[in-house]
C-alpha cells in the first residue's frame, strides 16, 4: 500500500482479513506535504504551545493535526457531522446568508473543547472530508488517513481515540469496528443510525407534511442535474412556508388551530386541531416529544397550566423538532438520491397505525382522542406512498453497516431528546453489541453508554403566559447539544479507557460525571429504537 505505514496500532491487526480490508480501504493517491506551524492557543487563561499541521490526504481531504508541546501520548481523531453537499443561496432559517459546501478540517466539536483538550495534553486531528453529505465511507477513509499521517509524523503517539459527532459518530464507530487495530478506544457522540434508518425518520415526517398539509412539497424523486437542484431549493422554501403557517396557526388559536390553506385533506379531518395532527406525524416518524423550548410537562401558571403541558407542549415540541427534521429530509434526500442514483426513501409498505399503536394511548389527550387519530391514520393508509429505487437502496446499504462487534473500549454519549439522531440510534448499537457478545463474536464489558437527559421541566413562560425560547439551548434536547464540560468529562473517560483497554469502573464513571447533573448511566435504560428498526 502506498503512502501509508503500518503504525503501532495497525500492526496490532491480527487477522489477514482485517489487513486485507484495511488495504482495500486506503486510497493510493499521494498526499500533499504538510504545512506545520508552531503557535499558541488560549484555553481559558492558559496559554498552550502547539504545533499545527495542515494538509490534504490521498483523497484530497483537508486535514489538521494539532500537537501540544506537552503531549500526554493520546491522539484524538475527530470525525465531523454531516454537512450540506450543495451550495445554498440565502434561505431563511436554513442558510440565512447562503452557504458554500464546507470542506474545512475539524478536530473537535468546538474550539473551546479543542483548546481544553490541548491544554490537557491531547493531540487532536481531523479531516474535512473531500465529499460532503452522507459520506460514511469517505469519512472513515479520511479519519484513517489523518490518523496514519499523524502517527507517521509523531512517533510519540501511544494511544489513539476515534470520536465524532452525529454522522461523525457513526463514522468513528464504523472505523473502530472495521479497523479496531488502528485505534485504542472510541467515543461516538450523538451517533447516527444507518442512512436508511435516518432517512426513514426524516422522510416519514416530510411525507406526512406533504400528504396532509401541502402537496406542493416534492420531497423525493428530484430530477437530474440543475433541475433537481432547483426542485430541492424550491422544496426548502415550501417546507419552511408550511412550517411557518403551522406555527402561526397554532399560536393564533392553540386550542383549535386551523390547517394550512394548502391542505387537500378531507374536511372531516380538518375539523381536528392541526396541532394534534402535527403530533401524530411526529409519533409516526419517531420525532422526540421534548424539544429545546417545550418539555411536554410545564404550562403557564394558572388555569391552563396542565392543559398546556398535556395537550399543547408535546405537539409544539414535535413542530420545533420536526422543522429541522423536515429540512434535513429535503437536503439529505436530494443528496442521497444523487449519490445513490434514485429514490432511497420508501414508505410503500409502512404501517403507520401499527407503529403508533402504543403512543395512541399515551397521547390520546393531545391527539384529541383515539378515534380521531385513527381516522387520520386511516386516511394516510389510503394515500399514495413513495416507492424507492431498489438499486439505489442497495447501493446505499452496501456501505458498512454497524455490526456491534466492539473490540476496543467504546463510550457512547447520546441525548434522550436529540431530534436528528434520537437516542434509539445509540440503543441500536447497544443491542447489536449485546447480540455480538451473546453469540461469542465480542467480549463483554467493552461498551458504556452515557445518556444525556434534559431537566425534569424547563419550559419557561412570560408573564402573559407565552412560552419563551431559551437563549441557551436546552441541554439534553436538540442535536449534539452537549456542553463543553460534559464532552470533556466523557473524553477523559475514553482517554482512560484507551490507556487501560477497559471501560472505566463504575466508581470512576460516577466520579467523572458527578458534576454533570444531566448525564446518567443506567445499563437498563432502553430508549425506543428508530421507527425503521421497530
Amino acid at each position, binding site marked *: 500500500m502506498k503512502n501509508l505505514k503500518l503504525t503501532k496500532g495497525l500492526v496490532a491487526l491480527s487477522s489477514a482479513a482485517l489487513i486485507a480490508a484495511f488495504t482495500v480501504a486506503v486510497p493510493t493517491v499521494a498526499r500533499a506535504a504538510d504545512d506545520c506551524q508552531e503557535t499558541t492557543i488560549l484555553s481559558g487563561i492558559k496559554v498552550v504551545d502547539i504545533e499545527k499541521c495542515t494538509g490534504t490526504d490521498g483523497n484530497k481531504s483537508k486535514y489538521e493535526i494539532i500537537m501540544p508541546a506537552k503531549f500526554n501520548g493520546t491522539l484524538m481523531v475527530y470525525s465531523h457531522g454531516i454537512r450540506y453537499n450543495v451550495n445554498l443561496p440565502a434561505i431563511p432559517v436554513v442558510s440565512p446568508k447562503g452557504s458554500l459546501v464546507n470542506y474545512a478540517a475539524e478536530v473537535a466539536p468546538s474550539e473551546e473543547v479543542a483548546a481544553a483538550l490541548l491544554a490537557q495534553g491531547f493531540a487532536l486531528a481531523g479531516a474535512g472530508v473531500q465529499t460532503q453529505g452522507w459520506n460514511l465511507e469517505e469519512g472513515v477513509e479520511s479519519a484513517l488517513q489523518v490518523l496514519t499521517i499523524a502517527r507517521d509524523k509523531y512517533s510519540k503517539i501511544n494511544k489513539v481515540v476515534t470520536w465524532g459527532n452525529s454522522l461523525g459518530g457513526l463514522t468513528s464507530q464504523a472505523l473502530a469496528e472495521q479497523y479496531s487495530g488502528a485505534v485504542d478506544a472510541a467515543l461516538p457522540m450523538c451517533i447516527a443510525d444507518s442512512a436508511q434508518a435516518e432517512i426513514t425518520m426524516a422522510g416519514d415526517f416530510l411525507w406526512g407534511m406533504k400528504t396532509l398539509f401541502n402537496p406542493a412539497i416534492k420531497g423525493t424523486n428530484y430530477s437530474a442535474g440543475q433541475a433537481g437542484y432547483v426542485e430541492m431549493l424550491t422544496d426548502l422554501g415550501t417546507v419552511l412556508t408550511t412550517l411557518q403557517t403551522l406555527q402561526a396557526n397554532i399560536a393564533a388559536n392553540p386550542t383549535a388551530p386551523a390547517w394550512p390553506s394548502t391542505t387537500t385533506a378531507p374536511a372531516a379531518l380538518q375539523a381536528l386541531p392541526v396541532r394534534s395532527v402535527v403530533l401524530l406525524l411526529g409519533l409516526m416518524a419517531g420525532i422526540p416529544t421534548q424539544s429545546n423550548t417545550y418539555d411536554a410537562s410545564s404550562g403557564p401558571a394558572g388555569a391552563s397550566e396542565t392543559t398546556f403541558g398535556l395537550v399543547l407542549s408535546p405537539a409544539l415540541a414535535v413542530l420545533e423538532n420536526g422543522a429541522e427534521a423536515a429540512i434535513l429530509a429535503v437536503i439529505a434526500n436530494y443528496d442521497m438520491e444523487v449519490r445513490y442514483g434514485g429514490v432511497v426513501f420508501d414508505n410503500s409498505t409502512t404501517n403507520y397505525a401499527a407503529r403508533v399503536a402504543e403512543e395512541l394511548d*399515551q397521547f390520546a389527550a393531545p391527539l384529541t382522542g383515539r378515534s380521531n387519530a385513527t381516522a387520520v391514520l386511516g386516511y394516510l393508509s389510503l394515500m399514495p406512498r413513495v416507492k424507492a429505487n431498489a438499486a439505489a437502496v442497495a447501493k446505499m446499504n452496501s456501505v458498512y453497516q454497524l455490526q456491534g462487534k466492539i473490540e476496543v473500549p467504546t463510550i457512547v454519549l447520546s441525548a434522550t431528546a436529540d431530534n436528528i439522531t434520537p437516542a434509539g440510534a445509540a440503543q441500536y448499537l447497544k443491542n447489536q453489541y449485546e447480540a455480538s457478545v451473546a453469540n461469542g463474536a465480542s467480549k463483554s464489558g467493552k461498551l458504556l453508554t452515557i445518556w444525556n437527559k434534559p*431537566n425534569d421541566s424547563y419550559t419557561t413562560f412570560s408573564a402573559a403566559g407565552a412560552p419563551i425560547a431559551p437563549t441557551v439551548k436546552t441541554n439534553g434536547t436538540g442535536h449534539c447539544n452537549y456542553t463543553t464540560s460534559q464532552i470533556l468529562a466523557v473524553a477523559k473517560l475514553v482517554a482512560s479507557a484507551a490507556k487501560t483497554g477497559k471501560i472505566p469502573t463504575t466508581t470512576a464513571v460516577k466520579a467523572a460525571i458527578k458534576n454533570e447533573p444531566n448525564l446518567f448511566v443506567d445499563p*437498563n435504560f432502553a430508549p425506543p429504537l428508530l421507527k425503521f428498526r421497530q
Partner: protein
Amino acid sequence: MIRNKSMKRATLASAIVATSAMVLSIVPAHANSTGVTATTIKLGVSTPLTGSAGLVYGKVPGAMRAYFDYINANGGVNGRKISLVIRDDKYLPTLAATQTTNLILKDKVFALVGALGTATHSKAYTAAALAKNNVPDLFINTGFSGFTNKAKYPTTFMVLPTYNMEAKVMAKVIKDNFPGQATFLIAQDDEFGADGVAGFTTAGHKFTASPTLYPQGTMTAARAEGALATLGAIPGKPVLVLFGTTDVTATILKAAEKLELTKKFTFLAGSVGADANTLLALGVKSTTVDGIVSASFMPDAKDLTDPYVKQFVDINTKYNKGITFDNYVLAGMNSAMLTVQALRAAGKNLTRAGLMSAIEAKGSTFASAGLVPLGYSATSRVGYNGYWVSQLNAKGEGKPYGGKLVIYTTDSGAGAVEVSNFVRPTMPKNGIPTNS
C-alpha cells in the same frame, strides 16, 4: 385511574415541578434488593399531587404513607421500617416518565406502589425500564386491561378490576334489570373508553346507537346538552351508561338537570366516574345523585359499620391528621395494607423477585377491604376480579342495588359474568397483618 374517584382530564391544573438535579446514579444490573437495608424498605410512587388532579387523587399517597407510618409504629415489617418517596407527576405522561425514572435511579426505591393513570404509567413503565430493572410495580391505580399482559408488564400487579370487566358486569346489570329499555353509551375516547366498549362487545350487549366517544377534556356543557336533548326524545326510560371520569359525569348530570331530564334516564355510571362526594362538590344536585347506579369493588367509605373502613378511619385520624376520610383515603390505605402483606409474605430475605413471587403465590389470600376476590396467581396480575352493584342515595352513600349485596366476578376475556359467594377475609387485628 382510581375507581370511585374522579377526573382524568386534560384540563386538570397543576402546580410545581420539582426541577431537581438529574439522575446520576448507576444501578447494578442485577441488584434485586436495591432500596432495602437491615432496618428500612424504601418504596416510591409517581402520582398527581398538585393541580385539580392532585386535588382529587392527591390523598392517595398520603394515605399510603399514613398506613405505613402506623405499621412502622407497630414494629414495621420484619423489623424494617417502610418509607415512601412521593413524586408529583401532575398526571402528565412525560413528567410521570421522568419522575418514575428518578424514583428508580436517583431515589433507588425497592419497589413502586400505587402509580396512577394509564397514559402516565404506561409511558413511565417503559421509560424507567421497570421490566429490565425488575422493579416490582405494585397495585397500580388504573383499570386498563393492557396491564394484565404479563409479557409486556412482567413486574406489574394491578389492584383495580379492568375497565373491560366492569363493562361486562354493567352489561349483565342492564340485561337483568332493564330489559327492553333503550341503552346508550357515552365514553372517553382513549384506552379507558376503548376498554369499556370492548367489554360491552364481548358481553354481547348492543347499544341502541353507536357509542358517543369524546376526547378527554372536551365534554362541554353544550355538548352534553346536545347529546341529552337527542336522547331525551327516545321513548321509555333509557339506560344511559356514562363511562368517563367524574367531572364528565357531573357535566352530563347537570345538563340533564338543565333540560329537566334527570328522571328520563337510568344513569349507570362507571366506577371511575361515580364518586358521590365529587359529584356533589361539582354542583350536581343531591336529588340527581339519588338513584345513580354504579359498580364498585370497595365498600363505601362512609360505611363505618365496615370493619376495614372503621379501622382505616382510626388510623387516618391519628396518622393522617387534617385529612378527611373518603374513598381515596380508603383506596390508599387498602393498597398500603396489601403492600405490607406482600412484604411479609416475601420473608426477611427481601428481594424484588421474591416479592413478586410472594404476591403470585399468596396474593389472592391477602386481607383487604375489597368486597370482591383478588385474582393474583402465577398467571394473573389482575387485582380485584369483580364488582358489586351499588345505588347512590341522596346522601351520596352507595347501597347494594336491589337491597342485597351481589358480587359478580369475571375476567377481561370471553369468560362469563358469574355470581360469587366470596367471603372477604377478616380484617387483621388492629389492622396489622401477621401473615407470612
